[in-house]
């Protein structure tokens, strides 16, 4: 897609601020957009992603909801039926589960249940993942629960620029979008081009070109993969790095293309590995790029245990070394 350049407006800002600006833009564009959640109004959210928005748009558009996740998602559905587009904040990943029925049996299926007569433009923002040394329930990576659920779209930005644009695209989508925000990245600064849209919401992005091994991941894993690639280069191994961006649907085209070129792939995620998105991507790539692969797709992930106490998260979470170990193994085939 080539868009005539309309002049750039590139600003440097932290990831959380980019989300904030993206939400502000979405709310300005469309006055049917509402924000809902716990502590998102006066406080601006525990991560300050919605800071200032209640002051700007009023408490009818930025709602400090009662403390009940099923209630928040369930009323967001009713609001969608009344023509609103709600952006729900779940305070932390581990608190999405009380809303699970409303998400999987309702939100995800309502458009289908109505044979298309109703759309469900609800975005569920979930700060997710580890790396912040938090107590239990504050570091989960629940993407697999949602990617397994037909009717949901699931995305995760890894840079401020993507944060800024993807949240707007998610709000514009007529379908429910689970929007996973890597909380490890909230404070990371980066350039945001506010004039020109990045790639489409459901496109993956090659963030580094390489020829020997393809590394795939999303969210906070992307910078980890880039670090690993940089180190591998020092040892003469050329890694291609792909940021999934969209976890459901997965934009398989570029991934398969890359796998066919490099013949090797390592998939990295924070979530436990068993029955995970990594399983899906690995299985599909091995099936579809079967003849082109020189090695099985290797997966690096959280262990199949509950996320451990913070003092062990460094061991639990895949890091550069574990990624490189997998790269070595892939190369050894």
């Amino acid at each position: 897609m080539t868009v005539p350049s309309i002049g750039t407006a590139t600003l440097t800002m932290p990831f959380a601020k980019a989300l904030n600006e993206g939400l502000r833009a979405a709310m300005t564009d469309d006055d049917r957009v509402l924000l809902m959640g716990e502590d998102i109004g006066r406080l601006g959210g525990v991560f300050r992603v919605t800071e200032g928005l209640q002051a700007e748009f009023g408490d009818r558009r930025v709602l400090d909801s009662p403390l009940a996740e099923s209630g928040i998602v369930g009323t967001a559905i009713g609001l969608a039926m009344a023509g609103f587009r709600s952006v729900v904040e779940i305070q932390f990943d581990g608190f999405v589960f009380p809303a699970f029925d409303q998400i999987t049996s309702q939100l995800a299926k309502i458009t289908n249940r109505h044979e298309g007569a109703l759309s469900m433009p609800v975005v569920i923002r979930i700060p997710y993942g580890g790396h912040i040394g938090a107590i239990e329930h504050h570091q989960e990576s629940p993407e697999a629960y949602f990617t397994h659920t037909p009717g949901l779209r699931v995305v995760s930005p890894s840079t401020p620029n993507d944060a800024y644009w993807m949240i707007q695209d998610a709000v514009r989508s007529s379908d429910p979008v689970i929007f996973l925000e890597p909380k490890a990245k909230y404070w990371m600064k980066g350039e945001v081009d506010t004039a020109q849209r990045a790639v489409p919401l459901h496109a993956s992005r090659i963030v580094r070109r390489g020829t020997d091994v393809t590394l795939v991941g999303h969210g906070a894993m992307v910078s980890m993969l880039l670090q690993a690639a940089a180190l591998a280069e020092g040892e003469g191994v050329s890694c291609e790095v792909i940021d999934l961006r969209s976890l459901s649907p997965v934009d398989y085209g570029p991934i398969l293309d890359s796998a066919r070129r490099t013949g090797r792939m390592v998939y990295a995620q924070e979530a436990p590995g068993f029955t995970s998105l990594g399983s899906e991507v690995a299985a599909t790539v091995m099936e579809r790029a079967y003849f082109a692969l020189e090695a099985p797709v290797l997966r690096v992930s959280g262990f199949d245990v509950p996320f451990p106490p913070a003092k062990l998260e460094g061991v639990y979470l895949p890091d550069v070394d574990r990624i490189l170990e997998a790269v070595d193994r892939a190369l050894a085939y």
Partner: protein
Amino acid sequence: MTPPDDPAIVRVLAADGTFAPSPEAERYLPLIDALAVDDLQTFYRDMVMVRAFDLQATHLQRQGQLALWPPSFGQEAAQVGSVRATRPQDHIFPSYREHVVATTRGVDPIDIIRVMRGLTHGGWDPTDPRNGNTHIYALVLGSQTLHATGYGMGLVFDGRTGTGDPDSDAAVIVYYGDGASSQGDVHEAMVFANSYRTPQVFFLQNNQWAISVPVATQSRAPLHQRAAGYGMPSVLVDGNDVLASYAVSRVALDAARAGGGPQAIEALTYRMGAHTTSDDPTKYRTSDEEHSWAQRDPIVRLKTYLESKGAASVFFDEVDAEAQAYADDVRVRTNALGGLDASDMFAHVYSEFHPLMAEQERWLADYESAFEGGAS
């Protein structure tokens, strides 16, 4: 104490059809007085028509035409009274047994049949004006109460309620059962409704049973008492008395639409039939109980009252004939229902393009055509 003898109950017609308002009914009598004979006859016709349809659907299920049928048998008065109290601009969120509610608002009974035949999960389009703002059935118990509350929040935010004009101010009514009342979602719906003061009526049909479980397992206290804990007015009504059901619903809906916040109604009624056609109530309840409730049949009650007011037998005959024709029509149309196209499965999972849908639909089409071509 049998619940219907609760002194706090609003009842206008006694079980034997005599006009015998309970003390709590006094304040509603002006509304009853304002009803013309025509209105009463409409209530009667609604109930008889849908009972005939309901019976027909039960037969259709027995004949293998439907996967399942949950009868509304016995609950006609609670449903007709409340739905006739709504105004055209109101939104209705049923559970899954509200056949009377849905059809009275304009839903074609064949659309309910299609759900229970396995042709659709939804059945009708709530945005189509012909369906009278009736939302589709909710099978996950209690889930709809939150949708209704969210809808009510939308009405508040849009200023479509509470302006003081009952002809344009909208309200929402949500139906749920005594069993569903135990679900967390119902509580959360009440929390949100009271927090945002939605123009909403929580209409609980306490039909004494949740499949085989008696209401006493869900609550030792009368369920309508829950409302007070949220700061919400509530009323207990004899749900087998269509006049009382109408009156309390009218008052509650109009209070809600006028900005009075959410309201709760508990209608005491009885599921005279099985839970669904898969159920066998003799396993868990006595025929004594069933007989005692048969004495309170809502249709008989209104009929006796109408007779006492001088309704001619030709009216009842006409309604019976009309009901029979209505039910027959449903049977004919049910038998004529066609099948589904496999590609329907992929068409509405998302509103916007989704590559997996396109891919899987194509795969299936290729697979099926290869099959037809004889290759396997």
